[in-house]
């Protein structure tokens, strides 16, 4: 009889692992751990991202750019693509976005009506 560790291996045979492979820790029994880890990792990174992109900004006029920023942050952290929906779903664990009150910055930007003007540089001819 082989050692306990390898005995487990026998069970994994159906996974395509050769019964002859010695002393290798069966991956599938350990794989449930990384999965939990990666979920935690995901959430940690998301919280990290929220320091740069506060959830409250997802309620204002910048919300699409903020969401894009979150997508990019996660993409770089995990080296894979994140869709906007996936990001929003992740956020949903922590925040009820609809309940957040948009901050008053919008009134700063949009509060003052001004006539459009072209920057001076447009009117300077450089031949």
């Amino acid at each position: 009889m082989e050692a306990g560790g390898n005995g487990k291996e026998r069970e994994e045979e159906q996974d395509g692992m050769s019964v002859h492979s010695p002393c290798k820790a069966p991956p599938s029994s350990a794989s449930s751990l990384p999965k939990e880890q990666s979920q935690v990792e995901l959430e940690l990174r998301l919280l990290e991202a929220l320091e740069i992109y506060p959830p409250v900004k997802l309620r204002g006029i910048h919300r699409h750019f903020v969401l894009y920023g979150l997508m990019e942050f996660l993409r770089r952290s995990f080296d894979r693509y994140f869709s906007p929906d996936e990001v929003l779903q992740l956020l949903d664990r922590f925040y009820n976005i609809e309940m957040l009150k948009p901050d008053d910055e919008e009134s700063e930007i949009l509060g003052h009506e001004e006539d459009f003007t072209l920057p001076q540089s447009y009117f300077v001819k450089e031949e």
Partner: protein
Amino acid sequence: MGSSSKDDSGSDGEASSGDAPPSNSGLFSEGERVLAYHGPRIYEAKVQRAELRKKEWRYFVHYLGWNKNWDEWIGTDRLLKHTEENVLKQQALEKKQGVDKSSKLGRSAQTKPKVSTDAKVDKEEQKNNVTKGKKRKSGSDIEKDNFSVEKLVKIQIPSTLKKQLLDDWEYVTQQDKLVKLPRSPNVDDILTKYLEYRSKKDGMMTDSVGEILKGIRCYFDKALPVMLLYKKERQQYQDAVKNDTSPSTIYGAEHLLRLFVKLPELLAYVNIEEETLTRMQQKLLDFLKFLQKNQSTFFLSAYDGSKVSEGKGKGKDD
């Protein structure tokens, strides 16, 4: 005038101690938009609170576009009224900083500055070391200055589109003409066409582009009446855009292009990572190139010279 510790001059009939009503907050009032010195530059700010401390007025200001962490108490010596004259002052300081930009970045990164062919830069650096010591007193100051240097996204508008903007200016402000509304294609159509174009090219993963385009539409709808119209177009706007109509269904490329002139300002109010900003920049530039490619179909070559208010007659069918 019986309140105990209030020796302030020029205030009349104030309330009980502690809560000074806005009208009695000295030179600046709560909620007032002002200009404030921070470091070597002047920034737009808003007075959040005003308090009299030891016979001096102190104002808690928030710098517009900056994180609330930067909010601070300052005195009247650092405050300016938001007048044209002071705005010019602000721009003058900005220009001055522009010269020092490159040297500034090098220094704060704590690395030796790259060997520059421009000896002037090095000289400026030395000058900065002496006179602008204040800037490096606290790490946060450097951060803010560098932040502002990197913060503004640069949107390079292609030259034929710049010409389009000049023509646009000419037609509306000099020739009293207007863009005939509603436009076809409108902003919505153009953004959709671009997404289709990109999907064909990339084949997949157009969500990023899609999100950015949604952002642009969002900005356009909100910003149009606030900062994208010439004065002469305001009446037309009132007539064309009723309550729940989105401007993006009425206006077209001409006004969309104006948004791109203002985009850096708008984006300055959002904190975005540098790397992400760079990618966005590329995508926005690609969109502009798309506009350029389709310039003849998207943009009007002639505006409407007939004034609706002057009744019929002046059609354009000569």
